[in-house]
């Protein structure tokens, strides 16, 4: 009897693909754009790309905490606008950056506390509860602004503009801030008891509870992180735009989910890491940046982004089955 041998990639190869597949994909896309899009591979464009991705990365870093603990936060995109206008309104009336920043952070914390209360403490399903909270923020921001942006006065505090527009030694400040936050989040998640417990909860919530971890407390904290990082990103965004836009930041939601999902598949471990989130956000923004340079119309960019996420999910699901 003749046995049919199936064509099979070797196990080692699949393992490599599982561990570094998403990363390799990023490199291939990068090389592709470098070859076909003029100016893509220039320092100037790379700095623009880093600046473009900085706000997304910061939101996604906050979301990384939530997803590391096995949760989900659907309020981010809609809530960004509420923080934008809080920051803008305080800035316009007081022209005090510190006060405005504090106001934005307070709204971020309140948002996180609301999500945390509903999801971690009361125990509602995270997807629907945070989605509902996001919907409420839409109502609030429209109630306050009627949808109109608030433009900064000409004599606005320099610090308020520096956050989004400033440069240090030629490097945009948002890029520096992003890098610092990537390092901080890496440290918290990988080197502290807090991070370890968050990952444990994401790995097995019941076992964490049986092992004496205060699951409610740590899940609650992840939502606060998410809110605070959203607030930082909103301040960066508003400062960059020079006006507080109630609708700005709505794109954060899908891009954030995509970035952090890419992060969980990045090193084949099923846990999102800060550096993975950074690379995930880079891939997402690189697609926008590179496709724009290739003069691809923006609706195709959405289609491409969607396809990339599906491809990465598909490979990770396929490989999870094949490689034990």
């Amino acid at each position, binding site marked *: 009897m003749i046995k049919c041998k199936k064509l099979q990639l070797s196990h080692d190869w699949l393992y490599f693909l599982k561990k570094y597949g998403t990363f390799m994909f990023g490199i291939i896309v990068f090389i592709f754009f470098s070859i076909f899009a003029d100016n893509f591979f220039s320092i100037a464009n790379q700095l623009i790309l880093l600046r473009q991705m900085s706000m997304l990365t910061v939101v996604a870093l906050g979301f990384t905490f939530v997803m590391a603990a096995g949760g989900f936060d659907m309020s981010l995109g809609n809530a960004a606008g509420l923080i934008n206008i809080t920051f803008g309104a305080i800035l316009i009336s007081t022209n005090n950056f510190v006060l405005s920043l504090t106001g934005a952070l307070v709204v971020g914390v309140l948002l996180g506390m609301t999500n945390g209360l509903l999801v971690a403490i009361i125990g509602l399903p995270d997807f629907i509860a945070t989605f509902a909270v996001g919907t409420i923020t839409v109502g609030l921001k429209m109630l306050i602004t009627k949808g109109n942006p608030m433009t900064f006065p000409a004599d606005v505090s320099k610090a308020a503009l520096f956050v989004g527009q400033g440069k240090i030694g030629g490097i945009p400040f948002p890029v520096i801030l992003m890098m610092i936050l990537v390092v901080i989040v890496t440290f918290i998640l990988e080197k502290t008891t807090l991070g370890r417990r968050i990952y*444990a909860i994401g790995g097995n919530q*019941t076992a964490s509870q049986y092992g004496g971890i205060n699951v409610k407390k740590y899940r609650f904290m992840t939502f606060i992180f998410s809110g605070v990082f959203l607030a930082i990103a909103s301040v960066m965004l508003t400062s960059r735009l020079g006006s507080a836009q109630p609708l700005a930041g709505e794109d954060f939601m899908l891009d954030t989910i995509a970035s952090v999902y890419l992060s969980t598949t990045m090193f084949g471990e099923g846990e999102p890491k800060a550096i993975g989130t950074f690379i995930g956000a880079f891939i997402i923004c690189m697609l926008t940046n590179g496709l724009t340079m290739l003069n691809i119309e923006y609706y195709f960019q959405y289609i491409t982004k969607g396809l990339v996420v599906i491809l990465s999910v598909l490979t990770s699901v396929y490989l999870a089955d094949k490689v034990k």
Partner: protein
Amino acid sequence: MVCINQSIIEVKNIGKEFNGVWVLKGIDFDLRPGEIHALVGENGAGKSTFIKILSGVYSQSSGDIFINGDQIEFNSVEHSESSGIRTVHQEINLVPYFKVYENMFVGSEVEKSVMGIKIIDSKGMKKRANEVLERLGVEINVNRTTSCINTAMKKIVEICKVLVYQPKIVIFDEPTTALGQEERENLLNVITALKEQGISIIYVSHNLEEIKEIADRVTVFRDGRKVALLEKDEITIDTIISNMLGEKNYNSYMRKNSYAEDSDVLMFKDVSTDLLKNVNFSVKKGEILGITGVVGSGKTEIAKAIFGLDKIKSGSIGVKGKDINPSPNNAIKNKLALVPEERQLQGIIPNFPVSKNVTLTYLKKWSKNGVLNSNSENKSTLDYIDKLSIKTQGPEQTIKCLSGGNQQKVILSRWLVGDFEIGVFDEPTKGIDIKAKEDIYILMDELSKQGKSIIIMSSYLPELISNCDRIIVLKEGEIVGEFNTHQENIEEKICKVMLGGHKNDKV
């Protein structure tokens, strides 16, 4: 009369290789029509791999399979199933909010045609469900919601789920794990009934008593090889064990000393929860206390009450004379430890390496101002890998790659690093091999010698009798008996109390 010369399955020289390692080699096996053929071996001996080849999960790397004399190569589970082979898995996979009969027909729903449109025929399914149950001699109301029936009944539903396909061969993987004595007997009767109806059965179990009771032949695996095929009249527990362990000398473990002192360290005072009813007992310093009862009698609920995982409705729990407000944190502060029953679900963090699983509970020990020192984590883990002889490639290996027994040792290490004083071990040896079991028994003896108190919940009586100073018997949430283990015919006495007046014919 069935012809016993023709084997329904014949397997010749089967082997399986993963990454150059042969986990199974040169296995010959045959299954006769209408027999119960048991497979035994320590964890990692190759039983599971072998079953997975027969059920089409893996394809073999070498060797041939014949079904009714025809050579067959399974490419998929569906392929194996279409050859009449079905498996009853160790885990229960039922949809909790489906009715019993609906679960039985998941994937094989009975349909009827109404005006050309196919719709589900509930009446037909119920009728067939009842027929299957009748064949097994079991009574369940098929209209009940599945989450409301007990574990033993769920297991029966799992069996029915397989039977609706009218298989010729059924593989049972550890079917009696976590069942109490009475339910175990019932299930064995069901399996024997299947055999009498001409179904051929491959039976995998760690429980040698039940293998002796029902198996017609036994194949013993060791280190990926078949080391013995025992005929009915050769099956004794001693021969199975000596074949399983090879040259190693196996003396059935029996604890010799008692280190119980007079002072009570843990007291249950009239504790009631959803299931427990006015439970009173105490544990002494250095004592090993056994708690037994059938499934649903409240063993696990005692552990849950101590750790605040079930709400206490009335009564109180005292540790060293002080009442505590039960929660996982308070329990740990009061130096209690909990090794939960469901290792996969409640014990391990599957994606974490061994080291992170060990340090999970007392994480502060390896940190300064909240910052972890992973070198010292690895060092402590290595200590325990050594002390408990945990088989792993090292502290960095992901825990889900370890065998059940080794995972259990990791969970034990998680608590041992913290110097607990009262250990609550819920089914600590469930589904693990003999060697690991014995290691855990010796460890518990060692711990009690150090003055620690231990509560073991177990539905396997011989285990409690050989390890405990005292055994408490629960029935429907109440304590119905308490026994010192040093007395004659204790197993029989406990069984009588546990099963509540029912005569137990077997000794």
